[in-house]
């Protein structure tokens, strides 16, 4: 199912499933609402998100895939507490590509020049992330937040003509930091925009071109060991 369609269906379903008591309070409002003042002590808030991630290992991704960023889509559940001041969220995401795969080709790198060999290589990245943070209830409908957490990242890599031992299927943990702002368009629906930094060691840098780039004596070299990167995320949140 395409992410956009899934998003619309989920929003519709979740909106329709609003509790009766909440609907009663909304009906009593005059059209304006105070999201921060309206927040319950604890709230469950499903969300869907799309993100564009710029990978730290730019030389590795550029060599293999000819691009250094990728789009993800995903979703999860956010729990806010203390009337919306703190939150924790669990989310999962997938590459927004056909078959959820980045498709590139194997290469040989010599003296900094990349030679593409025409042998197809397919990679997937499947993050499952948990973050927690603080929401600043400074404005009725504009809520900045910062958070940090950790994730589990499953990385697979398959090449044509590869023996099984040459394909990769590995899962590693990584760290997350993000900061953004949630805009409450409606008592039950908000949109959040944030920047997220992930640090995922242990997957890149141990072999292949990532290792070759990581062994160079440049400031970029350290980043070639990191599957993480900087992501701009757009999130639609349902719930108060």
């Amino acid at each position, binding site marked *: 199912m395409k992410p956009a369609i899934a998003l619309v269906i989920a929003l519709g379903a979740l909106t329709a499933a609003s509790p009766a008591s909440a609907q009663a309070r909304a009906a009593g409002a005059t059209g304006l609402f105070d999201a921060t003042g309206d927040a319950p002590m604890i709230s469950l808030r499903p969300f869907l998100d799309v993100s564009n991630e710029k990978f730290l290992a730019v030389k590795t991704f550029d060599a293999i895939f000819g691009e250094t960023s990728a789009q993800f889509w995903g979703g999860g559940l956010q729990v806010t507490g203390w009337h919306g001041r703190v939150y924790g969220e669990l989310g999962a995401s997938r590459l927004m590509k056909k078959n959820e795969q980045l498709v590139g080709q194997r290469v040989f790198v010599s003296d900094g020049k990349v030679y593409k060999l025409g042998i197809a290589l397919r990679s997937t990245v499947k993050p499952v992330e948990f973050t927690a943070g603080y929401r600043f209830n400074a404005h009725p409908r504009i809520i900045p937040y910062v958070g940090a957490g950790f994730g589990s990242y499953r990385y697979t*890599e*398959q090449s*044509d003509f*590869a023996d099984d031992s*040459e394909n990769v299927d590995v899962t590693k943990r990584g760290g997350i930091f993000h900061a953004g702002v949630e805009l409450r368009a409606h008592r039950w629906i908000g949109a959040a925009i944030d920047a997220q930094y992930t640090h995922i060691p242990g997957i890149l840098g141990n072999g292949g071109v990532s*290792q070759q780039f990581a062994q160079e004596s440049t400031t970029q070299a350290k980043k070639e060991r990191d599957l993480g990167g900087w992501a701009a995320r757009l999130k639609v949140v349902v719930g108060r």
Partner: protein
Amino acid sequence: MPRFRARTIAATLGVAAALVLTLRGQAPDARPFLQIADIGLPAVEEGGAVWNESHVPWTSQARAGRAAGVELVRAGVSGRSYATGKVIVRFRDEVAAEERRSIVRQASSTGEIATRRPYADFDIVRINPGEDAEAVAAGLNLRPQVLYAQAAYRVHATFVPNDPQYADLQWNLRLVNMEKAWDIQPQAGSSITVAVIDTGVAYRNATFSVNLRSFTHAGIRYPALGVQTIPYAAAPQLVGGSGSGRVVAPYDVISSGGNSPFDFDGHGTHVSGTIGQLTNDGIGTAGVAFNVKLMPLKVLCGDWDILFGTPAARCSTDDQVALAIRYAADNGAKVINMSLGRTSPSTCAANRNAPGCAPAVEDAMNYAVSKGVFIAVSAGNDFDRGNPTETPAEIASRIKGAVSVAAVDLSKNHARYSSSGSWVELAAPGGGGGNDDLGYIWQQTLDFRFVNTFDLPVAQYRAPRFDVMAYIGYDGTSMAAPHVVGVAAMLMQQGITDPAAVEDALEKTAIDLGASGRDDLFGFGLIDARNALFGKGMTK
């Protein structure tokens, strides 16, 4: 030079010296023989001593396996790769279509039975590519209505040439992992031209008229045979009989193009066979890059070149090697094989103008590499003769984009003759000699029994024939270098077009032998064609 010929070198020198005396009145620029026709009868092909008809042909199933490679694949719990998005199922015949659909739906919510293809007694169930096909198959196998269900495990293309002597004699190609390399690149260097700077190549049919004069060899005087008509034929397994299309810009450097670069020795034809022998045609042996184009460049004289009247002084000199290298670079060659060499001082790196060094060759090699040409040079066969420094092997070690190649035997051991030193960069099969067929590198070339008639007793001495081909085993670093050249041609075909990068790829993917890291016996190690062509992924 091959060790096969070692026994005849002394004899050749003796014959040459005798001829210089005998034929001193011959004008130095006279054509030593007369080619009276561009055509001749095709070669007589003689088989080797050992034949084995067992082979795995290049089947349609194998090709289908390669086609399967373009699908999304996944390594299952079983550890085997399968194509995602489908499961192979065979229902019991009595199970109705509606019940089949129901069973499939219970095993996979996205499962749909595809239209059965001709010849199939099973169905393909299409499922979401994200689903675990092995798990879906396991679920279906629990149902009594299902005879079997399995994931669509991926098969590999396994190209094993059907050339009958490949399996029995060509250990050398398996040693450098050629079968998997051919899986990656079945076109085997088809757009690349390889120059072979050697004794020439048996690449076309011809008929010669030669006045065979008397000569003295080892104190024995061989009689003049007078004007003889001598047949010459292309090696069918090298050029397919006619030579059309396979050979480009042939050139005889010795005669400045006055003659075609006919091989009267067999060495150059053998070397060319290892590089690009016609392969998978059900005949004879296989070659490494069996679709390359060949550029025969003659700089070395065989025995009969001398006996036909080419002055020994005009053969096999540095200037001719330099000219051949430049000719190759200017005429479209992308790879050069030089299975030749001589000893040199060890100080040429510091002072290339020292006596015994070869600055003309060095400049030519630099010129060729600067034009995008990769060069492989045999390291030399003098390990057990004092192991002197060899050139142009030593020069190659100083040029990024040219390599010197040592030899290993069947067991990946250092071949006892293979010169060693700091100039050795790579190793490849050269054979270990001995009485075993597997001590040699086998290719089709001139049958020495019809060529080296001067080795016969005087009473049996007769004119040679160059139209009889046989599969001959040679050993030497001359035989090692062509392996590297063939793989280099495939690397260029694969997209690594810079000769320095080709060298880099060969060295970084070589199998380290001997002392850890680069060493003087094996250089960076034994080349691995498949690893070189496979390159690198993100993490492996």
